C-alpha cells in the first residue's frame, strides 16, 4: 500500500512537472516571436496579440489535461481501490 501511494505521488509530480516544463519552453518561444513581430511591425500588435492568446490557450490545453489527470490521481486514486480488491 505504501509503495502504491509513494509511486502515485511521484507520478503526480512528474505529470505536473513535465507539463509545466514543456509549456514554459513553448510560451517562452511564443512570447519571443510575438515581441519580435511587434518590433518589426508595431501596427500589427493588436492582431498579433489576439492570435498569441489563441496559441497560449492551445499550449495550456495539454498541460492542463496532465494537471487534471494528476489531480485525479492525487485525490481519487483508483489504484487504492484495486489494491483493496486484490488483497482485502
Amino acid at each position, binding site marked *: 500500500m505504501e509503495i502504491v501511494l509513494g509511486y502515485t505521488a511521484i507520478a503526480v509530480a512528474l505529470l505536473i512537472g513535465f507539463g509545466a516544463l514543456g509549456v514554459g519552453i513553448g510560451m517562452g518561444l511564443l512570447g519571443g516571436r510575438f515581441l519580435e513581430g511587434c518590433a518589426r511591425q508595431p501596427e500589427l500588435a493588436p492582431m498579433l496579440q489576439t492570435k498569441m*492568446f*489563441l496559441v*497560449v*490557450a*492551445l499550449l*495550456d*490545453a*495539454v498541460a*492542463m*489535461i*496532465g*494537471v*487534471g489527470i494528476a*489531480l485525479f490521481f492525487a*485525490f*481519487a486514486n483508483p489504484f487504492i481501490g484495486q489494491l483493496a480488491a486484490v488483497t482485502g
Partner: protein
Amino acid sequence: MASEGGYANSGEYIQHHLQNLQGCQVDGQWVTNIHETKICAGNFWALNLDSMFWSVFLGIVFCSLFYRVAKNIEAGKPGKLQAMIELVVEFVDGSVKDTFHGKSPVIAPLALTIVAWVFLMNIMDLIPVDWIPKLGQMLGIEYMKVVPSTDVNVTFGMSLSVFALILFYSFKIKGVTGFIVGELMMNPLNPKELGVPKLLWPLVCSFNLVLEIVALLAKPLSLSLRLFGNMYAGELLFILIALIGYWQLPLHFGWAVFHILVVTLQAYIFMMLTIVYLSQAHEHH
C-alpha cells in the same frame, strides 16, 4: 477552514467539495447521494444533478437575457445593457467572418451560444468556494458543485455535440464516400500525387486512415479536456487556498484575478476552435 463545519481534516474538506450531487437508480428507486456518499459511484447511469441544474439554469439566464434585450432594442440611444450585448454579438460576428470560409446560418448563433454559455459556466468559479454549497447544506443538499464546466460530463457533452456537427457537415458537403475516401484515406500521403503503384494503395490508404482518425478523434477530446482541466485545476486551487486560514484573502484575490483571464480565454478558445473545425468541415476542394 479545516476545523469548522465538522470536517475531520483538510483531505475530507477537499473531498467533500469535489463531490457532485449524484442521482441514480438503485433497485428501481431513484436515490441521491446526500446521505450515502458513494451510493452512485461507478454507476454508469448516475446523473450529476448539480451540474445539470446549474448548466440549464445558466442557459436559461443567457437565453432570456439576450432575448429580452433583442426584443426591446432602442435604435437611437442604446442603454448600457444593450451596448454590452451588442459588443458581444459584434465580437462573435467578427470572429466568424474572419475564420469561417463557408456558407451556413448555423455557425454564428452556435458560436454565440458557446461563448456566452461557457463564459457564464466558468464565471461561477469566481464565487467564493463555500457560499453556495453552504446555502445548499442549509437546505439539506449535502454536496453541490456550482461550476458545471468542472464536470467532465458537461464538457464532453458540449464537445461531442460539436463533433457530431463536424461529422454531419463533413458528410453533407463532401459526401460520405467523399469524406471517408477523399479526406481520411488520401491525406497526408496522397498516393495519386506520389505516384504509388496501384498495388500499394491499400497500404498507404490504411496508414493515412489511422493517422487521420486519430487526428479527427483528437478534436473533441482535446476540446472538452482543455476546458475541464483548466476549470478543475482552478476550482481545486480555490479549495486549497480556502484551507489556509486567515491568510486566505490576498491569495484568493490574486488567484481570482488570474483566473478571470483563464475563464474568458477558455470560453473564447472553445468558440474559436468550434468555428475553425466547422470551417475545415465545410472546405470543398
